[in-house]
């Protein structure tokens, strides 16, 4: 029977199948960060259990970590306790940890691929919804809750109920200056925040195949924002080239065997439960105006009128969003002024994202009254950026160059918005209070973030005079 890529990987990982029960799946890689595992380790300890496969488990510190003065003790005592708890648990159970200050430290979804631990055909889990990022490699990767973290630690398996499959086919070519972020924001606006519920999305089509691995990760990262369990992209030469020679990539004969398997993963001519087709050539820079990632529109447009929504629930949501965001219907999106620009996160904190933003900022300055934070997704990304001199470009423009971490993606560490403050952010969630209590978030691409920093209002590179617009990354 013809199968989709997700179904093939699922079938390859069934440890046990029984009528009327969820399949028991083997997990190839389990990523941990400090927020969602303390209660799981505690559960193991209480039950006298060990971590079954420490060799398939890795931990890092990212959510609570400060991005300045990292050599000083962490000021917030509760954050400090959480990090100390992770360190204690990893030491006690024998789990590899990359703590703050380590060269491999960074946002969990940046370091997995970077180390070459994320590979095609694998099952990858983490107590974090953006685990979908790893699907960019043709892995079946999904976020889990703390009870499931405990379950994977104890058994290296998970009972999983079946999912449905959705194909998002992106035809044509992205116009110059339109990025993976604009694409995924447009997809979410199209299918809605609940549109992917119960589904694994496979992104395919010519526009997807042309994307770099970094851009594919940006797309898969936000699958959860469409409600999907996971997002994935078939592995191809771009994937193999990215993986080759990474620290944990297979070597020698193992590499050949692995690539041979990876080539078989591509979906057969299978039917998906749902299919959505998007024409890339119609897309343009896209930003959000509301308080969920589905509430977005082309930057060239304006804040919608809630009365224009046919569905009463959508109308109510739009009304509440405009009130929270302090926006009025009909306001052109380009005229929205911001206080803060955040470049970073597991969506857009990789080297290509920093390069794209630096290209805009080179020789320009951040507007008066605007603060811009540049937070690399990992220490390795930071080192690469320094090698390329990007840090100098950012600081010369007046932006702050920070240490790696989740930073302002969520209000959990010192980097937060003040109540009423407005940000253009390359992260993935614009929920009420996500970046700090009362903070207002517009999700944007790195290019739009950088231009917004320069002009002080939402804008794309095309709004700058003399900007060489290059093909979308």
């Amino acid at each position: 029977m013809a199968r989709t890529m997700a179904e093939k990987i699922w079938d390859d990982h069934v440890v046990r199948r029984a009528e009327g029960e969820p399949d028991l799946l083997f997990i190839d890689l389990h990523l941990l960060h400090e927020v969602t595992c303390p209660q799981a380790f505690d559960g193991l300890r209480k039950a006298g259990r060990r971590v079954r496969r420490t060799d398939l488990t890795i931990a890092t510190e990212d959510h609570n970590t400060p991005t300045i003065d990292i050599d000083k003790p962490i000021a917030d005592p509760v954050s400090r306790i959480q990090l100390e708890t992770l360190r204690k648990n990893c030491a006690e159970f024998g789990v590899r940890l990359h703590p703050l200050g380590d060269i491999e430290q960074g946002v969990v979804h940046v370091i997995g691929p970077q180390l070459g631990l994320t590979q095609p055909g694998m099952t990858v889990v983490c107590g974090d919804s953006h685990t979908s990022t790893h699907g960019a490699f043709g892995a079946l990767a999904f976020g889990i809750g703390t009870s499931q973290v405990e379950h994977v630690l104890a058994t290296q398996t998970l009972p999983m109920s079946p999912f449905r499959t959705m194909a998002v086919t992106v035809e044509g070519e992205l116009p110059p200056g339109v990025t993976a972020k604009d694409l995924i924001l447009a997809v979410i606006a199209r299918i809605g925040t609940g549109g992917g519920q119960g589904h694994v999305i496979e992104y395919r089509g010519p526009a997807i195949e042309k994307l770099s691995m970094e851009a594919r990760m940006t797309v898969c990262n936000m699958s959860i924002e469409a409600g999907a369990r996971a997002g994935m992209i078939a592995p191809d030469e771009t994937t193999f080239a990215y993986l080759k020679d990474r620290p944990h990539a297979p070597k020698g004969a193992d590499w050949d065997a692995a690539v041979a398997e990876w080539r078989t993963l591509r979906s057969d001519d299978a039917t998906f439960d749902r299919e959505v087709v998007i024409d890339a050539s119609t897309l343009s820079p896209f930003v959000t105006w509301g308080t969920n990632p589905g509430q977005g529109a082309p930057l060239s447009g304006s804040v919608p009128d809630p009365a224009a929504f046919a569905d009463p629930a959508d109308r109510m949501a739009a009304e509440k969003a405009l009130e929270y965001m302090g926006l009025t219907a009909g306001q052109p999106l380009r005229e929205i002024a911001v206080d803060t620009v955040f470049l970073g996160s597991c969506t857009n904190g990789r080297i290509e994202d920093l390069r794209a933003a630096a290209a805009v900022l080179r020789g320009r300055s951040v507007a008066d009254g605007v603060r811009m934070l540049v937070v690399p997704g990992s220490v390795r990304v930071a080192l690469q950026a320094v090698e390329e001199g990007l840090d100098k470009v950012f600081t010369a423009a007046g932006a702050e160059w920070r240490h790696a971490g989740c930073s302002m993606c969520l209000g959990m560490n010192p980097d937060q918005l003040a109540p009423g403050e407005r940000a253009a952010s390359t992260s993935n969630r614009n929920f009420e209070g996500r970046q700090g209590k009362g903070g207002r978030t517009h999700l944007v691409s790195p290019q739009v973030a950088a231009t917004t920093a320069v002009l002080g209002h939402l804008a794309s590179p095309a709004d700058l005079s003399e900007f060489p617009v290059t093909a979308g990354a």
Partner: protein
Amino acid sequence: MEAFTTHTGRVVPLRRSNVDTDQIIPAHWLKKVTRDGFEDGLFDAWRKDPEFVLNEPARQGATVLVAGADFGTGSSREHAVWALQNYGFKAVISPRFADIFRGNSLKNGLLTVMLPQETVERLWELTEADPTAEVTVDLVDRQVRAEGITADFDIDDNARWRLLEGLDDISLTLEHETDIAEYEARRPPYRPRTLPR
């Protein structure tokens, strides 16, 4: 885990859709390393508003939350479930739940019930008009009952059984330890390891 069979209680009608887990329990609450003590963080931002439904004196002690569609979207934080339970909720009713939230609820014995939007509207109307109105959520008969409302709901047999019995997933899985060991023995040798062999 506590078993769930049937529960009758008063309702908090939450007329909002897309209630994401950042609203249920904001990030700054996630730093605790225990599973309890999250009740004061539940809907933290909204509770600052004295008019918010949870603050109404008549809603104190309510145990069933009836919310709009797409409840529990966003972050995978299980703290959202703990916060609802710590506060005293036994069941949440909504036209649609986010997958991870639903899975997390099941693991902790918080029942999530999917009912059509119009039934949810009727439950809202009933309980807004009369805060003392009680709703019964019956997992044995897969039915929600309130004055003038009887609605059947779907839940898969396996999930229902585990809730009814209050079963712990890990013990269930460890009964199949030999299957796991067999699978491990046949995994491709080139799959990566985080530790040196």
